[in-house]
């Protein structure tokens, strides 16, 4: 009965999109209800707000990015990763398939667009270093609102920060297929693109565990019934019902964390080391202080 | 009252000048254009600094002065009648009182020949009509001390004559300072006539026409005084000439 359900506010990283499949499905299929949760999904326009809001106890859970988590923790935000939504990087360096850039080396002296995310320079720097280039061998331009248009229109030769499940399909549909270079293949340690973070002080709350359980159910159900899930998903907002979202949906499913609560702390340590090497982190706090597997500990 | 000094960009208008308004009498102030009549009026009204105004009863002038400036200063967004009761609107009145005041104002407007324009906006009035509205506003104030700067200048001979009577009647027994350019007007209405002259300016006079105002300008005695007044004015004009 929803009346007795515990209220839970989840701030997404951005407007609802196929990345959020498990959350939407869990809500639509009633998995949250089943766990006695009344979950409200809030969609901000600025991906930087959700962690702040959780840290300020304005929301219970935020969808954020692993790389940002490291920085947030360093800046003193009382946040802890409690689960994973998308278990691979989505971020990638994209160029025109039939453009002049065939290999990363070809970027030398060219323009690379990015949309301020905070650590594009770090990613790109690592990828370039792999091929004997330095950051100042390329010209970085902030193209904010128009990643794919700027590369399609040839205003830049490549963009970093493009999501492989979206921008690639987007360019395909626009008739200008792109080629992606994947950070994890170019010297950047693999990381979780999308994670769930909660406030340090609230970790004992049982709602969080029930939330993760519901999300896991939803993920598996989605994997088992992809088309049903898609119909369910697109029905929630007419704006979502188009070719691009459908393709993105299919491109995203395999990347969903099949075991959302599970924590691979090696992955977090490695990435912390990487960020430190890039000069973005001053220290490497113990992973346990900012990432946990709530379901691992035995229930109190 | 006394003025320490009033200086406008370099020109000293008044210096240690004293000027007395006799209570309950009409004082008329004449003088060549630009000599300082309006400035003196403003000093008395407390609109320009530098004047020391002393009253016989020792009380201040607040709440006792009505001023009719050289410009009509009608508020363009208020109908004539509201402009007439402006003083009361500004000081605040009850709705009932205001209704009473409007009737009073309408009567006054009738007497200055504007009854049919009570509801018109000032923009719809002719120059003389605006001046009459301003006069009505001043009389409406019903103050013991009344300062008027050329209140009839935009009126034709007949209307002016009628309004002079009106003012003389309503303001009988008040302390009035009337700035005017018209010697006959001064002789007709004033008890004490001064000519402001020189730079720094001093009021010369007073001339004291006989008999109670309003007087008949045709009167011989007055004509004599008029000649004197004109002489005085000519001298004063000449003085101002050489001063500038």
């Amino acid at each position: 009965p929803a009346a007795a359900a515990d209220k839970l506010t989840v701030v997404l990283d951005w407007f609802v999109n196929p990345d959020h499949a498990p959350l939407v499905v869990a809500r639509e299929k009633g998995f949250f209800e089943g766990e006695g949760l009344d979950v409200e999904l809030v969609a901000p326009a600025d991906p930087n707000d959700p962690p702040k809001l959780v840290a300020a106890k304005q929301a219970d859970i935020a969808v954020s990015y692993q790389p940002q988590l490291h920085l947030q923790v360093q800046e003193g935000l009382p946040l802890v990763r409690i689960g994973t939504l998308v278990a691979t990087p989505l971020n990638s360096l994209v160029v025109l398939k039939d453009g002049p850039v065939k290999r990363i080396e070809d970027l030398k002296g060219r323009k690379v667009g990015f949309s301020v995310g905070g650590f594009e320079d770090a990613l790109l720097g690592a990828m370039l270093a792999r091929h004997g280039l330095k950051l100042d061998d390329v010209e970085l331009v902030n193209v904010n609102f128009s990643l794919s248009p700027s590369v399609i229109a040839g205003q830049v030769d490549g963009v970093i920060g493009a999501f492989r499940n979206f921008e690639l399909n987007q360019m395909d549909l626009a008739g200008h297929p792109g080629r992606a270079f994947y950070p994890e293949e170019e010297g950047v340690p693999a990381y979780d693109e999308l994670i769930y973070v909660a406030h340090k002080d609230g970790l004992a709350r049982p709602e969080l565990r029930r939330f993760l359980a519901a999300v896991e159910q939803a993920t598996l159900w989605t994997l088992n019934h992809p088309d049903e899930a898609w119909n369910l998903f697109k029905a929630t907002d007419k704006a979502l019902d188009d070719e691009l979202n459908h393709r993105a949906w299919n491109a995203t499913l395999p990347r969903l964390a099949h075991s959302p609560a599970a924590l691979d702390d090696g992955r977090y340590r490695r990435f912390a080391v990487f960020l430190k090497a890039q000069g973005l982190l001053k220290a490497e706090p113990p992973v346990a202080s900012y990432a946990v597997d709530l379901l691992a500990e035995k229930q109190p | 009252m006394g003025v320490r000094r009033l200086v406008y960009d370099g020109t000293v208008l008044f210096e240690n000048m004293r000027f007395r308004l006799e209570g309950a009498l009409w004082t008329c102030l004449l003088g060549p254009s630009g000599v300082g009549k309006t400035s003196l009026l403003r000093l008395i009204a407390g609109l320009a600094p530098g004047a020391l105004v002393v009253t016989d009863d020792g009380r201040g002038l607040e709440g006792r002065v009505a001023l009719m400036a050289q410009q009509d200063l009608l508020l363009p967004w208020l109908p004539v009648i509201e402009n007439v009761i402006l003083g009361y609107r500004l000081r605040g009145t009850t709705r009932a009182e205001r209704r009473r005041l409007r009737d009073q104002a309408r009567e006054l407007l009738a007497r200055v020949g504007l009854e049919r324009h009570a509801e018109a906006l000032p923009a719809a009035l002719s120059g003389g009509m605006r001046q009459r509205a301003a006069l009505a506003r001043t009389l409406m104030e019903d103050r013991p001390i009344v300062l008027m700067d050329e209140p009839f200048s935009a009126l034709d001979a007949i209307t002016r004559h009628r309004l002079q009577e009106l003012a003389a009647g309503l303001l009988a027994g008040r302390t009035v300072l009337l700035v005017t350019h018209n010697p006959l007007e001064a002789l007709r209405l004033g008890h004490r006539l001064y000519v402001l002259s020189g730079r720094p300016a001093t009021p010369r006079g007073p001339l004291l026409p006989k008999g109670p105002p309003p007087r008949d300008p045709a009167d011989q005695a007055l004509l004599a005084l008029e000649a004197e007044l004109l002489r005085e004015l000519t001298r004063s004009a000449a003085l101002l000439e050489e001063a500038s």
Partner: protein
Amino acid sequence: MSRFLRPLVTAAGILLAWELLVRAAGLPPFILPGPGRVLTALAAQHELILRHAAVTLSEIVLGILLGSLFGAASAVLIAASRHARRWLMPLLVVSQALPVFALAPLLVLWLGYGMASKVAMAVIIIFFPVTAAFLDGLRRTEPGWIELARVMDASAFAILTRIRIPAALPALASGLRVAAAVAPIGAVVGEWVGSSAGLGYLMLHANARMQVDLMFAALLVLAVMALALWLAVDRGARAVVRWQPETLAHDHQG
């Protein structure tokens, strides 16, 4: 030409110019689609767009109401007291320099995710032109009127409310015109504070998904709202300050 036909002709002319621009500059549709494509998208998605438009419209209306109110009030306050002028004015000026992403978390923290925080953001954008214009009007009252009022023993308050403010209404009107013009963008920016509805949201979303036609369809609707609002305020303002003579012959006709 009838005053009803007129705007239509103008609109047609502008659409035509738009089409020509797109063709002449050979703009790719993912940067600026022609009116044809946009109108098609509008027709296809109209109920989606209208649903979001309704939200934005209410934000706009609320924004301009509260904005004008707050703008006028602060102008009067500043005109009335030099302390207000000294302490409030700097804050008002600075408020115009605050980017939305710096304010958003604060607003959400204080006002939550609902309408309130969005409208607050819109108000911050809308009020200033009103304050500035009205304040200038309050400053420029004909000195003669003030002096007359002083001689009439009017309190400073009476002078303010019965002379300064009415005399400054034309200035207020011109402030309101600007407010009307910036209200739509104010509402859109307000929606960035965090919302899942409204044209601002729709456009941002469509833009990120390269549904450029949809984005410009929404923008077209927003533009129409802006124009309508501006015309309404313009008419209204003029009606209020009828006593203020206007001297551009063609202003009197539609």
